[in-house]
């Protein structure tokens, strides 16, 4: 068995305060929630999030994430993210705004590039440098040289003429990605929406994979075209069934809508959030405790139906 397989606690210990952290999945899909709860238990500080900040909200409320470079900080159909809104208003969360493509093109560091020409934000105030917060974000970064000196630069295009916008790339210190299946050597198989997890896994210095299940490497290698991340990129593997709850994991389980609605209500003040954290993160001690608290009935009600990849809303309802 590979020595990459570790406990969730060990894996999350690899994340250092002030790290630039890529958190995998997108918005409310395949978000590594078990790892995020463990970051809260370990009291991480000054992490810098990237691209999209959504169900990571409790980690913002707990003070783990204090900066964000990306395009979207909200809970999608669930509306305002309570802790993101509160911490931003108090000046405890710094946000650098980008468009969606640019918030993904920053991972072109995966190809060894320090910048790319991007024309995805022309005409927008996103290109107005007076709004940039990179200097403030650099102050909290552990590896200060990884935060670009400016948000964008204007250059003359020597090849085709005209002006171009250069976007600097960013190299995450660590990527934490939740996948459906990981082989014992680290090969990952993702079902459904990928986000840009593959690109980010190539960009990050260190890659932690949490997975619904660890499967034999050979099983995944029978169909290598279906695999998303090669074992060579993966440093640590943790088996965490239901490890993205309450987000949705294609082919495994559906979004826990009631859980998220309840969270949004209860996280609206810092005092209430602390009560929520005590109930769902600290008092349960670990992921097994969290699952026990959720209970088998609730988890089974979310389980995806084979052939769909999700649980149809009227499935088996009488």
């Amino acid at each position: 068995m590979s020595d990459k397989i570790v406990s969730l606690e060990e894996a999350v210990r690899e994340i250092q305060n002030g790290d630039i952290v890529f958190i995998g999945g997108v918005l409310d899909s395949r978000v590594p929630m078990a790892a995020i709860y463990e970051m809260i238990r370990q009291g991480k500080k000054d992490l810098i999030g990237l691209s999209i900040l959504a169900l990571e909200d409790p980690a913002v409320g707990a003070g783990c994430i204090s900066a964000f470079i990306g395009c979207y900080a909200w809970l999608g159909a669930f509306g305002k993210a309570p802790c993101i809104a509160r911490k931003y208003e108090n000046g405890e969360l710094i946000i650098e705004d980008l468009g969606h493509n640019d918030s993904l093109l920053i991972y072109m560091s995966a190809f060894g590039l320090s910048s790319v020409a991007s024309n995805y934000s022309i005409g927008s105030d996103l290109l107005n440098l007076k709004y940039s917060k990179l200097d403030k974000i650099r102050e909290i970064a552990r590896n200060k040289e990884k935060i670009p000196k400016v948000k964008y630069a204007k250059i003359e295009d020597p090849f085709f003429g005209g002006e171009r916008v250069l976007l600097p790339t960013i190299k995450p210190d660590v990527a934490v990605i939740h996948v459906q299946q990981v082989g014992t050597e680290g090969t990952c198989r993702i079902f459904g929406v990928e986000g840009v997890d593959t690109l980010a896994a190539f960009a990050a210095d260190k890659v932690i994979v949490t997975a619904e299940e660890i499967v034999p490497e050979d099983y995944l290698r029978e169909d290598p075209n279906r695999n998303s991340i090669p074992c060579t990129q993966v440093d640590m593997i943790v088996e965490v069934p239901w490890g993205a709850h309450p987000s949705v994991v294609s082919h495994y389980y559906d979004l826990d809508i009631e859980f998220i609605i309840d969270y949004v209500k209860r996280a609206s003040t810092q005092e209430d959030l602390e009560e929520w954290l005590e109930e769902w993160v600290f008092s349960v001690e670990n992921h097994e405790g969290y699952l026990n608290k959720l209970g088998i009935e609730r988890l089974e009600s979310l389980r995806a139906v084979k052939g769909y990849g999700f649980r149809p809303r009227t499935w088996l309802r009488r």
Partner: protein
Amino acid sequence: MTEAVKAEEYTPLEAAVVYVARELKKYDGRSVITGIGLPVVASLLAKRLYAPKLKINIESGSFDIQLPEIPISLFGPRISYKCSAQLNNLHSLAGTARGDYDIGFIGGAQVDKYGNVNSTVIGDYLGGHKRLAGSGGAVDIGCFTNTIIIMPHRKERIVNFVDYITTPGWKCRKPFSDEIVDRQELGLPGGPIMIVTNLCIMRFDKESKEAYVDTIFPGVSKETIISNTGFDIDLSRARTGEPIQKIEIETLRKEVDPLNIYRLR
């Protein structure tokens, strides 16, 4: 089976969805890039009634999606279910620059008379302000694609000029400056073609690039539109929309969104 429904028998949001679906008729066989909420409901209604060959795409890397149920997550399995190919987000969203999409949808907190949309901050970014969701894929779509903007019709949301240009309309920001310039000067293709609210449809004057009221939903008065618009709105070209048909409301309620996921009614 043409049978008109009285205005009191449907909600303003249902009317908005129906008028958008009718607009999509001209895009049958072509590609739309959409998000969750009203746009996805309107696209599905259009596919049932007016544009059966409409190709619906999402910035989640999902091409020609089928939507077996109304999705809540833009990045979940209801989106990737039986789509043509599930690649990464860049594959689909960078398609805007390739010109792959014939029409796109934009939402936000404010739209101004030039069709600029703000989904970043309300107030002064460098002073007192309230933070919103951020661009998401809006800027990437709005820079290159013809767009339909969807906005609740309220004075503070349909404004003279947005507090922050997240997505450029017809008069937008010159890069690396505070200057406002014509969209064409920046070489941007596409641009907003209409704003759909719960009261009316606005389009943009070819010369002035300003929004004017094109279609008023049945049962809505001009005074209601004037008092809910944050600038002097031109109503001289306004006509009342074709009545909503029974089949449109029934298809929407019984087939497209039977569980009323987005609280349209």
